[in-house]
Structure formats: structure tokens, C-alpha cells
């Protein structure tokens, strides 16, 4: 029997083929989206398959630069490049959230050159109070109606609640996986954990729940791993170049916690109905996702502080993508606050999957050396 982890790794590495196969088997339409702030449950309840869009790094950007400037984030440029080259052929449409400007305004470019049948946008609030959450719920209602028009099927309250239930289970299981890393000798590495999260962007959520249950069982049967010396938290935006995770852990550190879009931010929030219906619950839950573009430094610091304490973090590695202006802007203040409060060492590296890892390796190695002193 193939282990859950192998299935997860395979789903991330061969996401296009896996998604194409899934579509063939299920016949379900597929909707792509960016960032963890888009309530996937809405897409799922419309009997569509949500896909978090990330590029494949093996393909170089050849056509995308005719549309998007090279001073925009390379992940987004690569994503768009691969979309217009037909590499995400399994998609039927996309929902683009208001987030960083590059993503937000890609909506217009996407719509003009729309390679798929469906395109919509969603305004995600930048503050979290009753008025902005009410508005977010109204946005979800509008997008939901557009999805209904697209599929020709109604999104019932029952189907929304069912989707929320499945997703809540997924979030709960991922939290359990992450909790394992609180141990002195975590039975699962940071890299393995990120595969567990990122495979959920590809695999059907119900099936993924089964994989997570299997993973938890398999991990509980593992022999004890040797205790690594340094416990790191990695902070940034889309830290999806998994070579980086692998490199850091190969240098003797253990990534025990993260504050990244493709990690904890994807499932840390809870969706709980409080008498105002499932859309309001989704709005309230997803408004709490602490991406850099919608979160103040103080809120981010609260989020990271809890992680540092709960996961007994020895140091923080900021992996900030070149041209990710929101993360770049948060980094100086967040870094200062962490140093002041916790007195632990931190380091910032500028990342870009188009760059080689060698210069970063030197910097990370030096940082781990500092942790050892």
C-alpha cells in the first residue's frame, strides 16, 4: 500500500497530472484561486473542485512577460505564463481575490484573455469587524450566485454546511499533524508537514481527510526520530519553493512551525456558525486568515507569538519573496517585535524560485551557526 505521505508528495509534485486524472474520474469542473483567503467551501458546495494555483518551477517564463512586468512576483508571473500556455488545462475558471495588487489586478488581464469559461473576483476585507465581515458575506453571496449560474445548480444551505463540515475536519486534522511538531523530537519533519498541507490544494478534501487520517496513523508507528538541535519558525508569504524547506532541514534545523500562506495560514482559522448562516460563518472564518496584505503588524505578531511559544521556537527565518511588497513591508517591524519580546535570533532571506539556492544556503548555514553559539 502506498503511504499517505508518498501520495501527498506525488500530488504536489505532479499536481497537473493528478488534477487532470481527478477531473477525468469525477467529471467535476475545477476552479483555480490564489491565496488562502478564498473560502473554498463555496466552490466545493457548488459541486466544483477548488484548486490553489501554484506554478510548476520546471517551466521557464516565456509568454507571461508580455503581460506582466518582471518587477512583479515571479510566482504569479509563472502562474499566468502557465495558464496562457495551457498548462492548467484542467481548469474551468478562476476566482481572484483582492490581495496584493499584482494578484488583484491580474483579474483584468485574466478576464481580457480569459482562457476558461468562468472568472470572478472577491473583495477580501483588510480589517476584521462586524461591518467588514457582513460585507465579505455579501461578496460571497454574489460569487455564489455567479457560480450557480455557471453550473446551473443551486448552492443549498445543506451543501454549504456539508462543505464546511468536510473542511473543518480537514483543518482539524492538519492541526493535529502540526501539533506533532510540538514534541521535543517531532515525529514528522517540516518538509513532510508542508507536503501534507499543500496536497490539500490539489486532492479532493474528503479524500484528503482520509489521507491525513492515514498519515497520522503511519506517523504514530514511526520509530523515534533523533532530536534536532534548532527549532525554527519560517515566516513569509508563498514559501512554495520546497527546496528551501529541504535545505534548511538538511542543515541541522527543524522547521517546527510556520507563518506562511501555503502552511498554517491555510487552515489555522475556524469556521463556526453563530446563528447568522453559513455564508456569515465563512466570512468570519476566512477574514481571520493572517496574510500580509490584510493583517496589521500587531495582529501578525500575535499570531506568530503564539506559534513561537507553543512550538518552543529557537529562531525565526523570514523567507520573503522578492517583489512581495506586503511581506517585505511587514518584515522590519515584525522582526523587531519578535527580537524584543522573545530575544531569539532571526534572519531574513530574499527568495525567488528563479534564483539558485547556493547564496541562501550560506546565509541559512551562518544563521544556524549563530543558533549553535
Amino acid at each position: 500500500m502506498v503511504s499517505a505521505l508518498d501520495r501527498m508528495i506525488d500530488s504536489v509534485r505532479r499536481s497537473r497530472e493528478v488534477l487532470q486524472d481527478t477531473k477525468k474520474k469525477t467529471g467535476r469542473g475545477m476552479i483555480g484561486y490564489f491565496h488562502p483567503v478564498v473560502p473554498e467551501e463555496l466552490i466545493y458546495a457548488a459541486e466544483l473542485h477548488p484548486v490553489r494555483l501554484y506554478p510548476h518551477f520546471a517551466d521557464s517564463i516565456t509568454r507571461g512577460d508580455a503581460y506582466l512586468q518582471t518587477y512583479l512576483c515571479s510566482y504569479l508571473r509563472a502562474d499566468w505564463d502557465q495558464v496562457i500556455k495551457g498548462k492548467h488545462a484542467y481548469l474551468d475558471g478562476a476566482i481572484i481575490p483582492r490581495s496584493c495588487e499584482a494578484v488583484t489586478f491580474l483579474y483584468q488581464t485574466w478576464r481580457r484573455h480569459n482562457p476558461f469559461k468562468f472568472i470572478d473576483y472577491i473583495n477580501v476585507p483588510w480589517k476584521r469587524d462586524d461591518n467588514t465581515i457582513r460585507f465579505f458575506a455579501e461578496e460571497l453571496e454574489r460569487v455564489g450566485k455567479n457560480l450557480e449560474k455557471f453550473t446551473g445548480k443551486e448552492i443549498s444551505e445543506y451543501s454549504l454546511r456539508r462543505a464546511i463540515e468536510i473542511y473543518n475536519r480537514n483543518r482539524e486534522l492538519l492541526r493535529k499533524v502540526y501539533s506533532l511538531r510540538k514534541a521535543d523530537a517531532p515525529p514528522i519533519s517540516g518538509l513532510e508537514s508542508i507536503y501534507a498541507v499543500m496536497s490539500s490544494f490539489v486532492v479532493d478534501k474528503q479524500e484528503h481527510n482520509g489521507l491525513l487520517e492515514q498519515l497520522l496513523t503511519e506517523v504514530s508507528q514511526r520509530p523515534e526520530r533523533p532530536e534536532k538541535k534548532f527549532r525554527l519558525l519560517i515566516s513569509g508569504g508563498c514559501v512554495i519553493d520546497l527546496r528551501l524547506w529541504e535545505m534548511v532541514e538538511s542543515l541541522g534545523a527543524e522547521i517546527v512551525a510556520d507563518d506562511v500562506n501555503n502552511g498554517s495560514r491555510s487552515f489555522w482559522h475556524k469556521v463556526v456558525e453563530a446563528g447568522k448562516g453559513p455564508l456569515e460563518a465563512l466570512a468570519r472564518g476566512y477574514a481571520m486568515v493572517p496574510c500580509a496584505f490584510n493583517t496589521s503588524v500587531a495582529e501578525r505578531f500575535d499570531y506568530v507569538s503564539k506559534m513561537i511559544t507553543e512550538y518552543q521556537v529557537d529562531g525565526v527565518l523570514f523567507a520573503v519573496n522578492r517583489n512581495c511588497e506586503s511581506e517585505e513591508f511587514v518584515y522590519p517591524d515584525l522582526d523587531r517585535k519578535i527580537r524584543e519580546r522573545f530575544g531569539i535570533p532571526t534572519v531574513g532571506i530574499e527568495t525567488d524560485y528563479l534564483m539558485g539556492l547556493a547564496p541562501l544556503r550560506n546565509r541559512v548555514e551562518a544563521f544556524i551557526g549563530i543558533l549553535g553559539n
Partner: protein
Amino acid sequence: MAEKEKRERPGFNKDIAAAIRKHYKDGQSKRPLAYTLMSSNPLIEVAYAAGIQLAFPENYACVCAARHASGKYCETAETYRYPQDTCSYCRTHLGYLYGSDDNPPMGGLAEPDLLLMTSSACTHYFKWWDALREIYGKPLVFVNTPRVMEPLSLPDYYIDHAIREIQGAMAEIEKILGIEIAEDTLSRAVTLSGEAVDTWQELLELQKAVPCPMDLSDLGNALFVLIVLAGTQEGVDLMKKIYEETRQRVNEGRGILSKDEERHRLLWLNIPFWYKLGIFGYFEDQGCVFPFSDYTQYIWGTTTMDGSKPLESLARKALSGELNTSLDDQIDKLLNDIKAYKVDGVIAHSNRSCRVLSVGVFDAVKIIREELNIPTLLLDCDHTDERVYSEAAIMQRIEAFLEMLG
């Protein structure tokens, strides 16, 4: 680059310069002082109705650039780990704050009592104001309105939400300052804002005249009045003065260039190079004027302001303008205005510091070129960080473009 030839500029520029000096002087002495943003900001009228003196760090960054101080301030910000990818408005202001310049442009900005923010610009500004909250520890009042990606079908709930946001912000301001913003005072501010907007729209119409009565730098100066003095009698009076003088120029057939000299009418897309406004003088020497720009035409003054419906007017203002809406909406307007203003060439600034106005610009330029068959030039640069500007590279491209125009 050739030095700008001495030409007769519209006299109102001196009045605007005086208003700018007064604004900065008032910012040094009057209290309470709030920092706020220039972009489609409904809190400007609210602040004046509340008796708050405003300062605009964004405008200050432009001033610093024009005085060639932005480069060193950006460098300082970078030593505080704000990388070059971040907006140079923000870096200029933060660099000024973190640095120790004994003689900053206009005497600098005084410490604020309050921070007023809207989300109608970009994430940078949200981050910038958040950084200011960290630096000053002063309350931040934040109006969080959505982007309007499909302006032709603006949902009612967007307006209702924006109204509630503004009401919430007013309640916060009242609580923080221990004041009450009277309904009639707000209504009066919105009425005055509306008068300035109406006059501005008439002013833009005058730019269709040949020869063109004002150049982009004059129009850029007039923007200060439209934005910073929105909701004040001073703003209305000055805007009317600008309009009257321009109308007279049109009636007398006086332009920045004479009718014979005016050989080309160009469109400037995106924000100008604030540290190199003299470039427009170079264009004038080459017989080129800029009757309009998306920057002067589509961002501010696009909403009718009705004093009898102050909250709705402010809500519509918050949701309007190019910074809020889709590029497609601007392209349609551009295609129409290029014809209306008799524009025969386009210079598009792909601005490293402004993603809002730059994402999609490749498409915009291509559509204009294809639909209208006019030449276009794309310049990769930055609005405030003059270290990004390369005289040789930029001028070489401009010269080639002008040669092509003939």
C-alpha cells in the same frame, strides 16, 4: 537633456504654490493634526468638517522628490530594511522619519495626533499607515472599502457598506477627539468639495482646446487644490481662479505653445517622474504638450458630490477612480479621450512603485496602438526614487519616439 525654455506659465501656479506653502505651514502649527492619504479619500471632507488639520505624507514624498531629497530618504529606509521593491512614496517618507535631516523640504511634517486611512489606494498604503501606527503609537481610523472591479455594475451593497464604514470612522474620530461632527458642517464640506469637482471637470474640458492652455505640470499643480483642499472654501475659490484664467487663455487662443508651435499632443500614462518634472519642458521644446493623463483625469474628481446626501457622496467617492477600479474601465475612457483631446502619441510609464496603475499597462498600450493606430512608448521607471531614473536610457527612447512622431 536640454534645459527647459522659459515660457509664460499660467499665473495660477503662483497661487497654488502659496497654497502649498500655507498647507505645510499650517501642518506645523495647527492641531489636531492627522496624516491621511490622497487617493479617493472620503475622510478628507470629514476631517475638515471635524476641524482637523491634515498632512499628506504622499504629497510630501512628491515634494521631496521635486527637491531631489527622495533618493537619500529611500536609501535611509532601505537601511531600515524596506527593500527597493516597496513603493518609493513610502520609502521616501519613512526614510525622512528615520533619518536625521536638519533641513528637510518644507520644514518637514509635524508629528500627528491621529492617522486616517482608506483602502482605496493599495496594500502599500495600508502597510505604510500600519508602520506609522507602530512608530507614533497614535490611533488609526481606517475606512475599508472594496475595489470595484466591474464599475458598470456597482452593487448597492458596496455603497451601503462604504456608508457604514464612513459612519464608523466618524464615530471613532468623535470619540478620540471628544468632538461632535455636525451634520450641516459635513454637508457644507461635501457641497464645497462638489463645487471644486464640478469646476475641475469644466477645467479638464478646456484642455481640449488647440493650442492647449495648460501642460501636465500645471494640471498636476491644480490637482493639489482638488485633492488636498477638498471640502474647503479656499479650495473652491482657488479652483475657480484656475478655471477662469484657463478659460481666458482659451478665449484668447493662448496656449503653453502657440498654435503653430504645438505639433503633437501626447498622453502621459501613470504618475510622472516627480524628480524630473522638467522633462515636460523638454517636450515643449520639441513642440509637444500633454493635454491630459490618466493620473489627472481618472483618479480624482470623478464623482458628483451632493451636499444633501453627504454620506452617499463620500461613499461613492471612496469607491470611485482609477485606483479603485478596473483597467478595462480606463481603457474605454482612454480610447474616447484620446480622440476628444486630439492626442497623437502615448507615453506610458511602467511604474515600479505603483502596481495599481502599472499592472495591465502592457495590454492598455497594445489596445490603444491597435485600435487607434497611434505610436506608443513604454518607459520603465519610478515615480519618486530618482536613483531608478537613467537619463541616458530614458532620453534615448524618448528621442527615438519623437523622431518617429516627426
